[in-house]
């Protein structure tokens, strides 16, 4: 009897052990691991952004650790005292903290973006139920410099707008992973064979072509200049025509990237110099002349009879009264006096004497395959716009459309597209992809197309542009330096499809340098209210201010 009972008890134990250890093995294993196995994502550090400051390189976007102060009210014994002590450190109001902790929640965020000093002070208090969460944000030591060019990183950690958006995958890096059996404090026990440790790959460091001193001055000059011409917004670009490197892009108005969440109008985030195409007006004549010369349709020393107006598709294109009416003109006059009739005449020469399909197709080929309009330049910016070049064969009123395009109306390009194309026409004929990231590979790696026009034609164009400045835009002269350029006063299409007559955009494209151009400068002034043509009265003076600043501060070699 006794032995029978003993055997029964043992049998019960054995059956129970079998059930627990064999049948329920997996369940209990998972239950044990759920408490011991910890899985962390190790965040990658976002790459910093640098730029040039003279011969040195300085960081302009870095990472900063800030802290979010939170409380679990359930564990906070004396809420009033805690609120008072914390508020003394953070500078906030104690009653706000008390109100947050009085709500029915287990996670009350009391303060955000606290610095390391405040974090250390709070940690010393050792309040139960109060914690600090680390967060990495972007820091901008140069303040709001080049804000639209840089973009920002949103709360989700994604690069938004500007270089942050375009280079997001390179800047972000790849998060690491730690999967390990840990002790009660969460420290991984390295002896476990199931541990997984994958180190994060930090984001790449990006070096910009921007010269911060130049960027700063161009931004200041633009901001100071706009009120003098009664304009509310504008852009200026400084580009190195010998390699396509953008040295400065300034826009006004702008914003503070470290306070991006305060911005009410999202349009402020975009970089208008690359994302806002416009009808550039007469600065397009520089490219029309280039097309005419390079295609052989016109000769540089040629003269022609200009009736001062042409009728195309029933529409009359005419010059302004100041241009002096019908007379014999030179190619130089087209640029110097900004003759719409002269640009139309060149378009006619492309077609053998009249604007026709041949002229349109040839012009379209130059615009899209030589100057690369109608397509993104590929500059490292979010939301770049391609602009629009009308098709030469489809649509209505194509001849008048292409006649208008000869002097910069009816097609849209961004200021950067215009600057890059113009640079190619004056640097000997090489189109360099405009770029903001200095990858250290040199100018040769940035060549998009060579001989978009011949070196000979390029030299002729420089001579024409310099002649315009030396004989017409004489206020732009800076002795010892070669300066060439062209004004543009562009009509603005209204919401009814017709051009407005009350306001214009002022543009200017030009270059400065010694024996070879050192910088191309593109100016855009939106809707200035001036008493003369917007290009000459609003845009050209800013070109002058920027070119003087460059000559005075950036060691441009003088002409021999």
């Amino acid at each position, binding site marked *: 009897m006794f032995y029978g009972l003993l055997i029964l008890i043992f049998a019960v134990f054995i059956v129970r052990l079998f059930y627990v250890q064999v049948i329920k093995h997996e369940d209990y294993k998972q239950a044990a691991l759920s408490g011991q196995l910890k899985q962390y994502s190790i965040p990658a550090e976002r790459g910093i952004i640098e730029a040039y400051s003279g011969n040195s390189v*300085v*960081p*302009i976007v*870095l*990472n*900063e*650790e800030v802290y979010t102060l939170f409380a679990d009210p359930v564990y906070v014994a004396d809420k009033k005292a805690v609120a008072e002590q914390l508020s003394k450190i953070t500078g906030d109001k104690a009653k706000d903290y008390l109100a947050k902790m009085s709500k029915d929640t287990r996670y009350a965020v009391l303060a955000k973006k606290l610095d*390391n000093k405040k974090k250390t002070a709070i940690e010393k208090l050792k309040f139960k139920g109060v914690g600090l969460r680390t967060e990495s944000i972007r*820091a901008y*030591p*140069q*303040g709001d*410099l080049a804000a639209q060019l840089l973009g920002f990183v949103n709360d989700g950690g994604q690069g938004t707008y500007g270089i942050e958006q375009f280079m997001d995958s390179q800047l972000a890096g790849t998060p690491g992973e730690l999967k390990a059996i840990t002790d009660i404090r969460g*420290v*991984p*026990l*390295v*002896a476990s064979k199931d541990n997984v440790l994958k180190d994060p790959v930090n984001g790449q460091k990006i070096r910009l072509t921007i010269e*911060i*001193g130049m960027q*700063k001055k161009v931004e200041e000059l633009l901001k100071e200049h706009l009120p003098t011409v009664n304009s509310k917004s504008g852009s200026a670009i400084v580009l190195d025509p010998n390699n396509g490197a953008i040295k400065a892009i300034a826009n006004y108005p702008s914003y503070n990237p470290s306070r991006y969440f305060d911005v009410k109008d999202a349009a402020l985030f975009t970089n208008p110099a690359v994302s806002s195409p416009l009808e550039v007006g007469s600065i397009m004549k520089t490219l029309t002349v280039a097309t005419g010369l390079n295609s052989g349709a016109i000769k540089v020393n040629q003269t022609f009879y200009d009736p001062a107006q042409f009728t195309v598709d029933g529409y009359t294109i005419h010059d302004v009264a100041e241009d002096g009416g019908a007379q014999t003109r030179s190619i130089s006059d087209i640029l110097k006096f900004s003759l719409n009739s002269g640009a139309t005449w060149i378009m006619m020469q492309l077609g053998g004497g009249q604007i026709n399909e041949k002229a349109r197709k040839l012009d379209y080929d130059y615009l899209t395959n030589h100057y690369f309009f109608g397509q993104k330049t590929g500059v490292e910016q979010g939301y770049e716009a391609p602009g629009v070049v009308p098709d030469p064969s489809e649509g209505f009123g194509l001849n008048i459309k292409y006649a208008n395009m000869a002097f910069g109306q009816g097609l849209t390009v961004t200021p950067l597209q215009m600057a890059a194309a113009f640079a190619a026409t004056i640097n000997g004929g090489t189109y360099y992809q405009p770029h903001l990231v200095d990858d250290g590979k040199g100018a040769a790696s940035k060549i998009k197309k060579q001989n978009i026009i011949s070196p000979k034609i390029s030299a002729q164009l420089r001579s024409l542009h310099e002649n315009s400045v030396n004989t017409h835009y004489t206020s732009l002269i*800076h*002795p*010892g330096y070669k300066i060439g350029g062209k004004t543009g006063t562009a009509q603005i299409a209204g919401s009814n499809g017709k051009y407005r007559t009350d306001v214009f955009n002022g543009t200017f494209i030009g270059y400065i340098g010694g024996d070879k151009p050192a910088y191309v400068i593109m100016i855009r002034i939106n809707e200035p209210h001036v008493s003369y043509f917007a290009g000459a009265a609003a845009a050209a003076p800013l070109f002058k201010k920027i070119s003087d600043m460059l*000559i*005075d*501060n950036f*060691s441009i070699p*003088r002409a021999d």
Partner: protein
Amino acid sequence: MTYSSSISIGRRRFATRHQNAVSMAEQARTIGPVSNSIVLVILTCLLGLLYLTQVTKTNSSGYKIDQLKKEYSQLQRDHDELELTAARLQSMDRVAKSNAAKELASVAPTATVR
């Protein structure tokens, strides 16, 4: 070979041939199943002990590694913070507003002919 030496060899052969043929070699010692089990248990325990010692040592190293990693991270954070502070101190706005900048006199650029 001499006569006497050949006689001597013959005697030795005789002696060998007529010795007792039964082998008296010592038998090999063996241990029983109980002893075997005890030895195995002891060995297993020793191995287990060795294993536990190593695991403990490794985990102890893990704590050291964890501590060093934390120190490294802290140093990295300090470095980043100093880099940011340095960048802020060298920012153009701050330099322009510094006392040293205020004392600078404006001169016409020597390289420019106006």
